[in-house]
């Protein structure tokens, strides 16, 4: 996972670079929580461009981080989800609470 914080916008960009399953979620969760508690961002952008696989472990992970972002009064958004990941997100209903934005370029 790579992270970038934009102080001016109080924006935290988290770019997930591994497949998301039960095996990888613990590590990803720890890293995400570290970054979130460090910056207390108003907005969290999750870049899924490099996530080629995600199963229901990812749903739990996302709902958990969404709750955290709500607690600190922020919002969370997913960008660049691949078709396979988007299918899991839509099927599970996560898209009803977390916004999915398409085709956003993040430098």
């Amino acid at each position, binding site marked *: 996972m790579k992270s970038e914080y934009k102080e001016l916008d109080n924006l935290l960009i988290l770019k997930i670079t591994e497949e998301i399953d039960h095996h990888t979620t613990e590590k990803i969760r720890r890293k995400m929580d570290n970054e979130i508690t460090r910056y207390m961002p108003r907005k969290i952008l999750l870049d899924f461009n490099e996530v080629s*696989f995600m*199963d*229901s*472990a990812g749903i*739990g992970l996302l709902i958990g981080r969404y709750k955290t972002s709500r607690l600190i009064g922020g919002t969370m958004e997913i960008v660049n989800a691949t*078709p396979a990941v988007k299918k*899991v997100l839509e099927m599970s209903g996560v898209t009803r609470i977390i916004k999915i934005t398409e085709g956003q370029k993040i430098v």
Partner: protein
Amino acid sequence: MRGLYDNEMKLEFLSKSSNEAFARITVAAFASQLDPTIEEISDIKTAVSEAVTNCIIHAYEDEEGIVKVVTRLINNVVEIEISDSGKGIENIELARKPLYTTKSNLERSGMGFTIMESFMDEVNINSVVGIGTKITMKKAIKKEEVQETISEEKNTKLIV
């Protein structure tokens, strides 16, 4: 001896979470003989990942056990059997329910069976408490007619 199936493979591995990716990638590679689409392959990978994860976190919990995966190809159908000798499921009907989980403390979403059922054509659960669980899933790989249409400007293959 030629069996009932066009092809068959068996895997056995320890219930370690690092084997989740191994299992789904191996089944997907085997199933690719039927020439599935990218979407069909990713559906199969996701369903296998869910079933294998269930064996690891629910069936064996903190103990180590053996997870068995049998994959068969029958005409254009992929049949996957994933079994364990773990603790078994007490209430299958409840386990199938979307959002139902016994592990909410681990941030589990309770969507495992729902995903298996929506990504595969058929999912059967056989479970005996104290003996183990066997999940059998089937998915038909759609035969798509590939028309090699040569468009006027570009040489592109169109899948109709």
